């Protein structure tokens, strides 16, 4: 399923947060959104998810306008995977995943045995079936992120919006979560994730959107558009971009320096 943003503009009073943002992503795409802090990544995601109305422009998912759509209907098209944080209430992983089926339930119903079965299947494909009855407070950040991914998958939405999926994760968990994300795209999901790590865009994304001052600085294939110049301009620091051949495969990597 494709998601299309056309000429998105968002202003808060006189302050323009986004202006003229146009891009699209289709099934199988893994789109990384890069940009310095406060550039409007969160605002962009809120527009894509229909949480806020853009001042101008439209967002469509599978050809349907997301804004003004009933939430239960929108939840079947597009899912949101927030940054992991330790939640106030210590739900079990299974209950967390089951929250994802709410969009297909009548208001007065809760999930049933069939939903539980489906939730356990998804946990198994993500490699964490043994955590079903664990409280989310006690598991690692990476496992918690996988639980949130499972919750999005059970929604049956084909477009996944991920807000910094690797924030607060250690080195190993960042790798595991990014691997999962590329698997999802390979399985036909449309994945859009934000990140502060250009190497994740270079390594895992097939498409990158770099935002600067609310406008698109560059949009395209990561290896082609994430040049030293672009990254330097984006973050205001010096950046080397080089090729490394590891295990027979060529990887692009970036490294910052004090210019």
């Amino acid at each position, binding site marked *: 399923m494709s998601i299309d943003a056309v000429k998105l503009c968002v202003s808060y009073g006189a302050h323009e947060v986004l202006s003229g943002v146009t891009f699209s992503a289709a099934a199988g795409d893994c789109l990384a959104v890069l940009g310095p802090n406060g550039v409007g990544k969160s605002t962009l995601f*809120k527009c894509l998810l229909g949480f806020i109305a853009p001042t101008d422009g439209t967002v469509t998912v599978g050809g349907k306008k997301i804004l003004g759509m009933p939430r*239960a209907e929108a939840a*079947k098209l597009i899912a949101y995977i927030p940054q992991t944080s330790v939640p106030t*209430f210590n739900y079990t992983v299974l209950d967390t995943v089951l*929250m994802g089926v709410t969009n297909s*339930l009548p208001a007065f119903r*809760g*999930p049933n045995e069939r939903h539980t079965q489906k939730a356990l299947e998804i946990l198994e494909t993500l490699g964490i079936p043994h955590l079903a009855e664990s409280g989310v407070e006690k598991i690692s950040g990476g496992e918690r992120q996988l639980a949130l991914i499972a*919750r999005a998958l059970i*929604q049956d939405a084909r477009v996944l919006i991920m807000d910094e999926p690797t924030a607060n994760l250690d080195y190993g968990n960042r790798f595991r979560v990014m691997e999962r994300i590329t698997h999802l795209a390979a399985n036909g999901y449309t994945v859009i994730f934000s990140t502060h790590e250009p190497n994740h865009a270079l390594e895992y994304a097939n498409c990158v959107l770099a935002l600067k001052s609310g406008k698109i600085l560059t949009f395209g294939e990561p290896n082609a558009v994430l040049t030293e110049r672009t990254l330097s301009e984006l973050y205001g620091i010096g950046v080397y971009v080089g090729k490394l051949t590891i295990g027979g495969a060529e990887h692009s990597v970036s490294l910052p320096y004090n210019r």
Partner: protein
Amino acid sequence: MPKFTHTDKLISSASVRARYARRCAALTAALIAVFVVSFFLGRYKVSPESFWRIFTSPFTGGDLSDISREVSATLYIRLPRVLAALLIGAALSTAGASYQGMFRNPMVSPDILGASTGAGFGAALAILLSMNYFGIMTLAFAGGMGAVLLAYLVSRSSRLDGTLSLVLAGVMISSLFSAGTSFIKLIADTDNQLPAITYWLMGSLSSIKLEDLPFAAIPIAAGLIPLILLRWRINLLTTGADEAKSLGVNVAGLRLAVIVCATLMTAASVAVSGMIGWIGLVIPHFVRLIFGYDYRRIIPMSAILGAAFLLAVDNIARIATTTELPLGILTSFVGAPIFVYLIMTGGQRREH
């Protein structure tokens, strides 16, 4: 690492559910036990045979004229009080639990939006105007509903984030009404009205009559039933507005439903019994320690535990001393030590 299969996990989920079912059965049994015992406590003794005859008489049509004093003690004095304690305990606990989910904060109590202080002001005003018990209940209920409506309207026109503006508005409206209550106490007649207001504000069920019960029962049922039906969705409110929306929930509508239901129950409770603090804040916490975090269990179990707890405390209030102890004082005296014990021993064992 051991390899887990589906069936393993299903069995494990089933055993977790079986454990909760056993705890639920134990709690329900405790509620029934407290309920039955309540009829035998108090200065006027009722024998078990009389008790049995009184409660089976609607089915057997037995003649009760030889035990008419026991009948009136049981049906007209103890029964209304027992039913009121059950209703109000359940109402305050579920109202507290729902607000805690909605505000994503386990330290929230049912009077966060001003329902109790508004009702307290209404009651104080009614006592100042020398109104009868029915007048006190009516003004108290109106005060509670009015305070929350004010807080809601203020927050609606605020540009702050939804729940933050609601809490701030609630705190402000609360302090306004409590200042109003203080002012009424200042100008009230110190011989009769002031003690009456003070005593009422501390909470008591001693003066409740059978005909007053619908006044509490109808609003409480009107609030409790929708919350029971919506209990799964309250879980989603605890994830925050954006996540709940992304999961397909109409967040504004659900929040409004929770506010209306919880306020109906709180205002009706305070109108009938006066201020009984502590229960709405802490009973949901006990329930989470025993039954976990899923609101499918928290709502009904809060109702049962809250009902049993308030009834037990009211029994103590009735028998402990010759003059009735106010409930507001006793709930803390009885509940706080139990709570401290539970915190220190860890409550729910964390196997995982």
